[in-house]
């Protein structure tokens, strides 16, 4: 099995996919860093200070103004209310929610890329790991060796998991090192609040805990990794089912983008919560942002993802070991 994984790695490296992904991540991180830097500058200019208390005070006032505007929808109003209460909580407890520094940037970057960006990068590798063998015809050589088919597929799947872990690690490393050039590398120990829960009555702060940023980051990484694995497995399944890499990518892309759109508009369609793509934003639960559909919790989303993962894996192996290759 080790040698088979070595084979898959050799092909992956020769295709230079990981390098391309690293470059894409690098460029994006640099862009975001610059955007964040500009935003900080602007705020400083506007408020005449870079004291976070003043900034957060100003944000709260903004939010209050928007809530009292009559043209805003009830749903949006409720979300703003929750964000406002959170900000108030931070202010009351004298904790800076966005302590400047590379770790904070990394946290925000991860939270914003969990839904679309990281899954897209994973998809680049996962969607052609099997179908490229078909389109090249090399599957005919691969499956006529004295190695059972499930072993061939398992080696590919394990390689995929390795590659996904690498992508997540690269994303972390690059976002830390590049943003650190601008914001400095400190801030691991900054306090972060977690455990907000959203109930019918609004924001519930009863179980809020204060933890160090590095602990929070560790959890974020775990969640990002989990999402990446699930999305990777589903792309992998499509790669087994659909011979054309482009078609497989298209299907997965449509699913991911529809997920991003759906989470913004399905709050009244309750059964949509069983789609895997509306459950991808796991880090939201950690921040206490309201879920796209009422009643969704971290454990619910993880269960949904787990079921999709199992199904994807089962279908992949079942089809791959049974199907005739022409």
């Amino acid at each position, binding site marked *: 099995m080790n*040698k*088979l994984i*070595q*084979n898959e790695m*050799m*092909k992956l490296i*020769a*295709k230079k996919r990981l390098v391309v992904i690293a470059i894409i991540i690098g460029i994006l991180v640099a862009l975001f860093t610059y955007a964040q830097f500009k935003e900080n500058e602007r705020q400083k200019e506007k408020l005449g200070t870079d004291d976070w208390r003043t900034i957060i005070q100003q944000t709260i006032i903004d939010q209050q103004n928007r809530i009292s505007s009559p043209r805003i929808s009830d749903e949006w109003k409720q979300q703003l209310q929750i964000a406002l209460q959170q900000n108030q909580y931070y202010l009351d407890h004298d904790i800076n929610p966005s302590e400047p520094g590379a770790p904070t940037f990394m946290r925000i970057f991860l939270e914003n890329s969990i839904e679309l960006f990281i899954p897209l990068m994973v998809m680049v590798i996962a969607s052609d790991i099997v179908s490229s063998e078909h389109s*090249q*015809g*090399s599957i*005919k*050589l*691969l*499956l*006529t*060796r*004295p*190695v*059972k088919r499930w072993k061939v597929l398992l080696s590919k799947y394990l390689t995929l998991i390795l590659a996904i872990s690498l992508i997540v690690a690269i994303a972390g490393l690059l976002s830390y090192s590049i943003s650190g050039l601008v914001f400095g590398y400190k801030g691991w120990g900054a306090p972060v609040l977690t455990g907000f829960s959203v109930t019918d009555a609004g924001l519930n702060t009863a179980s809020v805990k204060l933890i160090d940023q590095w602990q929070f980051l560790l959890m974020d990484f775990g969640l990002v990794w989990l999402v990446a694995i699930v999305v990777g497995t589903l792309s992998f399944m499509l790669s087994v089912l659909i011979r054309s890499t482009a078609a497989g990518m298209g299907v997965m892309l449509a699913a991911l983008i529809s997920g991003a759109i759906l989470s913004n508009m399905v709050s009244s369609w309750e059964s949509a919560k069983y789609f895997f793509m509306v459950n991808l934003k796991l880090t939201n639960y950690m921040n206490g942002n309201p879920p796209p559909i009422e009643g969704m919790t971290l454990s619910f989303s993880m269960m949904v993802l787990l079921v999709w993962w199992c199904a994807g894996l089962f279908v992949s192996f079942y089809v791959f070991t*049974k199907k*005739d*290759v*022409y």
Partner: protein
Amino acid sequence: MENITLSVHNLKKVIGKKEIIKGISFELKEGEVFGFLGPNGAGKTTTIRMLVGLIKPTSGSIQIGGFNIVGHFEEAMKHLGCIVENPELYPYLSGYDNLLHFAHMLDGIGEERIREVTELVGLRDRIHDKVKTYSLGMRQRLGIAQALLGRPKVLILDEPTNGLDPAGIREMREFIRFLAEEEGLSVLVSSHLLSEIQLLCDRVAIISRGTVITTDSVDNLLSNRERIIWRFHPVEKGKKVLRSLTAIEERDDGTVSTEYDEMKIAELNKMLVEAGVSVTEMYRKMPVLEDLFLELTGGDSIE
């Protein structure tokens, strides 16, 4: 008795409701080149894909080196090397890395064997170049090197000379003969080109519409159908003489053919001469597989 390396018994494949392969049986012996001849769409490729485990047979058995490929896939595949259609190796890897890749899938095959097969197919100088820079002939040779890595007993080559130039075809033919004669491999070669099978194979199975029409040695198939072609003067008189002695067949160019029988030829000639017919030409004609094939399949189309 010679060793049987590959045996196929009553192999069938049904796709949907259509029976594509209708019960094929044949055997390969050690050291022989076996031809698999049929027009496009006769079921050659489907059969070969079943032999190498890419397609599951609906019924029937395939044994390679004594192991059934259904129950003992790994053991059976150890004795098999194959190229199905074109040798589609990884273009972005070097030739060496390709061989390394497939050596990893075999037990106990290391760098030494890779060097051996590289020498054997004469690719030593280019083995570290990327496969995408190879010519078709070189890819074909690399494909064979890959197939030989595991020291197989049976080599299956689907259309091995497809797309090669005449020199390449000749080289490939000599190489396949070498493998069978010197290394003792059984080689199964499929082709829709009759001339190729005729030059390359010891025995041949002719397949059409999913069934084997006949299996025999190439020599046997041909020798039964050798004819003698006569040209003589005056034509009508000569025909009359021959007709009284044996069955004759008139040909378009004014010549006459009779069955080849070593014992009777001299006699026939003597009778003609004694009757005052002057024989201007007589020669033995080997039929080409083309005619044979048309005869056997009743005109099923072939290229």
